[in-house]
């Protein structure tokens, strides 16, 4: 049986008296995994510990079966890393930078040049590759960072806040690239982000940290409430909610009250939603909110991060 992609066992990291990670144990194996948590939750610390940038006070981390501390050289060549902050030499071109990093990770020069060209093409920087990085926009820098992280064909790539500083169009393109990396290129992706939508759009699993402790580690579809729990409508008053629930039930669409102003329809099909719309129109009831019953993925993640 192949070892898990990343195995974190009972890891503790202390900065002086501050406990940054408190006995975290988690196994990561999904094609794309989100690392979520509020500021100071321990995301960056966990990522740095996995990458070997800091030594845990206690515990063990293995990547693809290799001890991250003892086999650091081997691990370095099999992972890619895209830091959140600017980390590319401003006085080099993107092409030179990516070739240089590919060579450092063990690619012969000829292969490094070829793959740097391909990686820059993949991230959409082929036209700008000969410009000095100091002249790049933030979006171009993010793309160059992504190119260097995949140029050597890593088994797993760590992306720290990959959409930072991107405009909406650039963000969409970056998320599509990340999705492509994990699903088309077969490279495992670990995305650290505090933007839930980024995680939802790119990841299959999620690891949630809270105050240095593991709060959740599940597949997204397990964590996310599904439409099987129905839909919940919210109206302006309890009388209106009563009237709506009664009308729907009498019309053959089971519904019940939920909270002060809510009505839940366990059957969240389109027919039920049509009936809800018609009933609301018939009785002149304004629908204030319509959402999956039991909350959204965002609700579930926020709950895991904060409670």
């Amino acid at each position, binding site marked *: 049986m192949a070892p898990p992609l990343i195995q974190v066992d009972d890891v503790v990291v202390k900065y002086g008296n501050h406990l940054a990670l408190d006995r975290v144990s988690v196994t990561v194996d999904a094609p794309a995994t989100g690392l979520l948590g509020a500021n100071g939750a321990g995301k960056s610390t966990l990522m740095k510990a996995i990458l070997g940038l800091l*030594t845990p006070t206690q515990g063990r981390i293995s990547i693809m079966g290799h001890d991250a501390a003892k086999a650091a050289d081997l691990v370095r060549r099999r992972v890619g890393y895209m830091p959140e902050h*600017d980390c590319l030499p401003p006085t080099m071109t993107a092409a030179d930078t990516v070739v240089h990093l590919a*060579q450092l990770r063990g690619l012969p020069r000829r292969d490094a040049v070829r793959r740097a060209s391909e990686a820059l093409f993949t991230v959409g920087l082929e036209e700008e590759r000969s410009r000095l990085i100091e002249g790049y926009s933030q979006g171009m820098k993010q793309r160059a960072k992504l190119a260097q992280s995949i140029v050597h064909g890593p088994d797993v790539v*760590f992306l720290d806040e990959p959409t930072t500083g991107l405009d909406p169009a650039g963000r969409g393109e970056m998320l599509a690239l990340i999705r492509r990396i994990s699903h088309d290129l077969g490279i495992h992706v670990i995305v650290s982000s505090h933007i839930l939508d980024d995680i939802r759009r790119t990841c299959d699993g999620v690891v949630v940290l809270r105050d240095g402790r593991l709060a959740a580690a599940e597949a997204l579809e397990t964590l996310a409430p599904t439409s099987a729990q129905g839909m919940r409508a919210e109206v302006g008053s309890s009388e209106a909610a009563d009237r709506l629930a009664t009308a729907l039930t009498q019309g053959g669409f089971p519904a019940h009250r939920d909270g002060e102003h809510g009505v839940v329809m366990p059957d969240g099909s389109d027919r039920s939603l049509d009936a809800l719309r018609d009933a609301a129109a018939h009785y002149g009831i304004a629908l204030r909110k319509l959402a999956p019953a039991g909350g959204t993925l965002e609700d579930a993640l926020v709950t895991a991060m904060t409670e």
Partner: protein
Amino acid sequence: MSTSPPPPPPGFGGPPPQDPASATPRAQVHDVRFAGYTGERTPTWTAPLTLAWWSLLRAFGRRRGWTSKFVPFALLGLALIPGVGVLTVRALLSSEFPGQELPIELLPYSAYLGMIGTLIVLWAAVVTPELVCPDIQARVTSLYFATAISPGRYVLGKWLASMAAMLGMTLVPVVVLWLGNVMFADSIPDALADDAANLPRIVGAGVIVAAFFSTLGLAVAAVTGRRAYAIGAFVGLTLGSVVLAGVFDSTGHETLAFALSLVAIPTLLAQRLFEDNDIPVVAMCVSYAVVIVVSLIALRARFRVQP
């Protein structure tokens, strides 16, 4: 003008149709999209060499304007002037007085490094910060240490680059003088035989001076990410040590004065390879070793994985 009619098609008097399976394909479809890398990888010990090579390219202004290249090449040009000047005089005198030996040695090898001592210090002050300061300022080191090269190998790669750059200054001018002396001699074979013993001394002297200033320069530059500060700190440290040595010398503490002057230590030790000079060799060797070891320890401590 006549044109020949087109050949009849197969089955109408033309050549028999080819079996598609046996026909040589005229085109082939390749999947050239970015994919995983399965080629060979270079051994990890090559990473410091790769880093050194790219660091040198950056330090000497690759793909940057002439202003980035001007200072180092101007310093090298100035360092060549004494040797080239002496060779020019020698060539002129040789043509005026053919077959006669010059009564004096215009520029002994032992004196050359002392003569360009100021240029060597300036060279170290300018070049060594270029090797590490941009990495610190742009935070490239976190990227290196996470996925490319260990901190120890990083220091080794930078030291090799620094050493190569310094050897350019401490070896090239003296070797040019040596070559010129041989080439302008009446009998090249005789000159080669007479002067061959000086070549290892020239190399040894160059290595002694280069190792000292490259290590010290790197250690000082690694303290800050700002090149201007690093240059100022290095020049200040070396000049300060000379002033301090002067103070001790004036109070009769000659040995201490020799052992404290960061300019005199490597230069006079290098000179010792050519001739006996009246210096406290043991004290200066101890000083030399202390500076190298402390600088290396400081470098290793500056670039390390957080404990």
